[in-house]
Each structure stands twice: as C-alpha cells, then as structure tokens.
C-alpha cells in the first residue's frame, strides 16, 4: 500500500511548493516556489529533508489530512497556528501543538490546522517529501501554467498525496529555537528599473508612505493601499521582464508588489524592487499588515543577502532535540505543568 497523506479539507489554498522553477522564464514559465523560503527551509530541516524538497504551503487557513502510511514524520513552520493532532479522521478534538517542531504520526492519525495568524503562510514538510514528478526540475505548483505540484493545482478534498517514504526514521522529535518569523514593517528596496517614470516628489512619497496589504493579494502579487503614486507621463510601458519583488504602479497609483507566481512579463512601470534578502519576510506578510519601503544601495542589498544566507545556513544549528521524547500526552502534560512525578521516560 502506497504511503500517503489524504486531504480531508484543503484549507483556503494549499499547494505543494519548493524553491522554484528557475531558468525557464524566457519561455513564459513563472518561477513560483515558496512565498517564504525561510520558513519553508526550516520545515524541511526539521525532518532532515534537503532544503529544496517539496512541502505544503498553506495560506491563511490550514488543511486537514489523515496519515495513510505506517507512520510519518511531519514538521510545521511559519505563522502561528493551532495544529491539532487527532487520533483519527473523525475525532472531534485532539492534542494541540505549535509550529516550529516535528511530530511523528502513526497510520490513521489526522492533523487539523485552523487559521494562520501573524503571517500569511504555514509550511508542512514530511520526512522524505512527496512522491510527485518534478516538472522542469521543480515540484512547485504553478496554478496559472497548470504544471508541477499535485496536477498543477491547489489541493482538494480527497486528494491522496503519495509520500516518498513508507515510514519515519528512528530519531527524536525536534524543535527550532530562536527563529523570529514575525514580519517586519519596513522592506528594503533598490529603486528602479522605471523610477524615472516618477517625479522625485512621488518617489519620496513612495518611500515615506505607509501601505496596507489589501485583500486582493494572492501568490501572484501583493496589492497595497496607501497614498497613490502619480506617474510623470502615463502608466503603460512596452512590456518587459519582471522579477519577484518588483513594485509596479498601475494607473490607480496603488502599488502591487509581485510575488512568486507573477507573470514573467508586464506592462506597468516598476518604481522599485524589494531586495532579495527581504523577499521571504514579504512573502509571509498577511492581508491587513502595515508596511513601508526604504531605499538601499546594491552594496547594502548584497550585505543583506549574505546575512540571509548565514541565517539559512544556521537553521540546523538551532534545531534542538525535544527531550524527553514527545509522547503527545507527555508534551501536553509538560505544557500544563502537571508532569511532576507521573512521567515515565520509557513510556
């Protein structure tokens, strides 16, 4: 019998993602991949996966699923969410755990995830990853191009996602400490490529303004609301290429920051581009969040990128073994301060 996770409820929008499909943009293929590659890599690290292994990305409201494998090790990383571990798919309630840790589940156990707070995304990695075919070197779901992931689309009820491993390895469960995934308020940008389409006063307004992430945002782009930015002379440029983090200003003057699933080309002037080091935090910024932009130089952006790489390289150093081994009941007891005298480490 194939090891799998069966989806009981897909949540708002849950897709398989990885670190993206690079080198095919000239053929119109979007890069895609995890909106927040830092939390994504943290989830994979917690289950000993390669950094780029496919994992589930849930947005705003998580999925429910049941384990159809001898057992499976899962890890959760990203926004705050109540993750309920149920004894079976029909159980009314179960033990609740927080993200940034791994958990081992046996056949028939189910996971129910509610709303995701203080962040747009939550990543769910499974040890060994999903047994899905890469398309152009990536398992990222491209919903517009209908490729990758699970049949090129978001998950639906009843989908049975095959797992690459039949069972979890023998090891203790882990927790990732000292990792701050709270989204910042300020995002660093390099001005351009079309900043000359805006008068100096408009660029100042852009850098001084506070914006709110609007409900029209999705994996393609983050729509912002704030003081409108006026163009010097029209808002239609001859279509050119787009990069993740491009801040385009359409006729309304309300900026749109392009995210992982953006089209490869577009025809609005781009006043600035969010630097690569700030893209993971941008990707986790939820609807309703306030944010603003700060211009930096390319040298500052390179230093920030180096710092981000150091953080990513250090993820594994911050993983600590959960000790004693977390029988879920024991964990709950620990959390409730009721452990004294009743816990048997061999249980």
């Amino acid at each position, binding site marked *: 019998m194939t090891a799998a996770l069966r989806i009981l409820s897909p949540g708002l929008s849950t897709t398989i993602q990885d670190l993206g499909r690079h080198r095919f943009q*000239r053929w119109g293929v979007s890069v895609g991949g995890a909106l927040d590659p830092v939390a994504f890599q943290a989830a994979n690290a917690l289950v000993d996966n390669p950094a780029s292994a496919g994992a589930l990305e849930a947005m705003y409201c998580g999925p429910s699923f049941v384990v159809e494998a001898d057992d499976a090790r899962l890890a959760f990383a990203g926004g705050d969410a109540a993750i309920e571990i149920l004894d079976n798919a029909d159980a009314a309630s179960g033990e609740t755990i927080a993200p940034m840790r791994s958990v081992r589940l046996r056949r028939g156990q189910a996971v129910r995830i509610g709303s995701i707070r203080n962040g747009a995304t939550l990543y769910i990695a499974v040890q060994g990853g999903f047994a899905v075919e890469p398309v152009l070197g990536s398992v990222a779901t491209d919903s517009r191009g209908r490729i990758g992931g699970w049949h090129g689309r978001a998950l639906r009820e009843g989908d049975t996602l095959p797992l690459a491993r039949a069972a979890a390895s023998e090891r203790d469960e882990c927790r990732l400490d000292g990792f701050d995934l709270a989204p910042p308020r300020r995002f660093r940008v390099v001005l351009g490529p079309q900043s000359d389409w805006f008068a100096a006063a408009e660029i100042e307004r852009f850098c001084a303004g506070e914006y709110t992430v609007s409900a029209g945002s999705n994996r393609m782009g983050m729509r912002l609301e704030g003081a409108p930015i006026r163009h010097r002379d029209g808002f239609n440029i001859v279509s*050119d290429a787009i990069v993740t983090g491009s801040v385009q200003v359409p006729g309304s003057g309300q900026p749109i920051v392009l995210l992982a699933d953006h089209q490869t080309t577009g025809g609005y002037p781009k006043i600035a581009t969010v630097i690569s080091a700030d893209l993971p935090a941008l990707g986790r910024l939820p609807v309703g969040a306030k944010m603003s932009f700060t211009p930096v130089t390319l040298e500052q952006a390179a230093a920030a990128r180096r710092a981000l790489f150091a953080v990513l390289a250090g993820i594994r150093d911050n993983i600590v073994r959960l000790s004693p081994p977390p029988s879920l009941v024991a964990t709950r007891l620990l959390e409730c301060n009721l452990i004294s005298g009743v816990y048997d480490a061999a249980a």
Partner: protein
Amino acid sequence: MLDYRVLPAGDTALVVEFGDRIDRTLSAAVLALAQALDAAHIAGIVETVPTFRSLMIHYEPLVLSATALTARVEEHVQKLRARDVAGRVWHLPVCYDRRVAIDLDDVARRTSLTPQQVVERHCAPLYHVYMLGFLPGQAYMGDVAAELALERLATPRTSIPAGSLAIAGRMACVFPLETPCGWHVIGRCPIPLWDRARAAALLAPADQVMFVPVSAREYDTLQTRAAEGVLRVEPVSETAGAVA
C-alpha cells in the same frame, strides 16, 4: 555602437534596455545579446529573459557583482552583430473558420474589410517571435498589418480555448492554455505551443512563424492527432540574420 542603458531590477537582476518601443532592430539587439551571453557561459548569470526592447539578466550577486556584470555586458554589446541571431522558421496551421474564429466578423466590420481579406492579410506576413510571456509557451509575434491592429474588447472574455489565435494590437498571439482573454480571436491553431507532457514550448524568441490557413476538417484531423500525441511538428528551416 548601439545605444543602451543598464537598470537595476533589485539586487539579483539587471535590465539592459536598448530603447522604449517595439521595433525589429531593438529586438535583434536584445536577442543577439541574449545569445551572446548564453554562449559565453558567464559564472554567476542564472538566466536571461528577452523582451521587446530589453534583456533581463538574472544573476547571483555574491558570485558576480552588478559592476562586473555591467562590464561584461558592455564588452558583449560592443561586438554585437544582430545579423547573427539564430532562430527557426515554423509553418503553423491555423483554422480561420467562423466556428473557432469567433471575432472574425467583428474584426472585418471594424476594419472595413471582408472576412476573407482579414484572413489574407493576417496570414501574409512572416511573423517574428519577439518574446514569450503571460503563459508558458505563449509567443508575441509581430507584426500584424497596421490595418488589422485592434485594441482590447470592451469586455474581456472569461475564457477562450487553448490554441486560440488573437490580434493583440500589432501582435499575433496563440494562447497555449485556456485563459481569460480581452483580445479579438480570429482563429485557432491545432499545434500545441506548450507541450504539457514534455513541459516544453514549441516556439522560442527569434523564431519566425508563417500562419498557413487550413479548413475546419483539416483542423479537426490535426487536432485529433495532436491530442493523441502523434503529431510531429518540425521547423521548416533554421535561420540566421533575418530578424531586423
């Protein structure tokens, strides 16, 4: 010496812009630079994305600085020979029958031509693939005769079938996937421009395309063979230097 400027698109991409209009000469420069940089295999360049009048170069700044990359671009632009742009020539069957050419009569009315004249004028040029974008495998092919150039519909359609051929201003576009569309649809191509099974685009920037009208019956036959995966499509020839 070509006029160009280098613009930052964040810290991991540069835009080399040759102008601000859709023009074969600019396109030839963009495509020649893309091909020259690809051939040079410069460490730190991740990918290049040609568009109408500029080339985006994605790079790893911790391997190749923006300054160093700009110097390499300068070096290659100096010796660019647009004549050397290599592409392939394709003959793509198109059914202009009203059954699939849902806006043909509307286009005829708007251009004061007969539907037959619209078809004749639309399939007359050898089109140049400026760039791909919007959807996997979707080529922007130009130039549509000025008298056929139409702007968007007042109300975009929520969905048109895969293979639909539309007039988008001076561009001819075949939409490889079912998609919402705001342009006038005047035909359908049975050849998949995006092969889902192989995840491969048929056309590439710098290719050239001739639309060959086929009957509704021929269309059905070709479409069936394409659906069965037994339709082999090969370029008519390789070219070098016919872009500008």
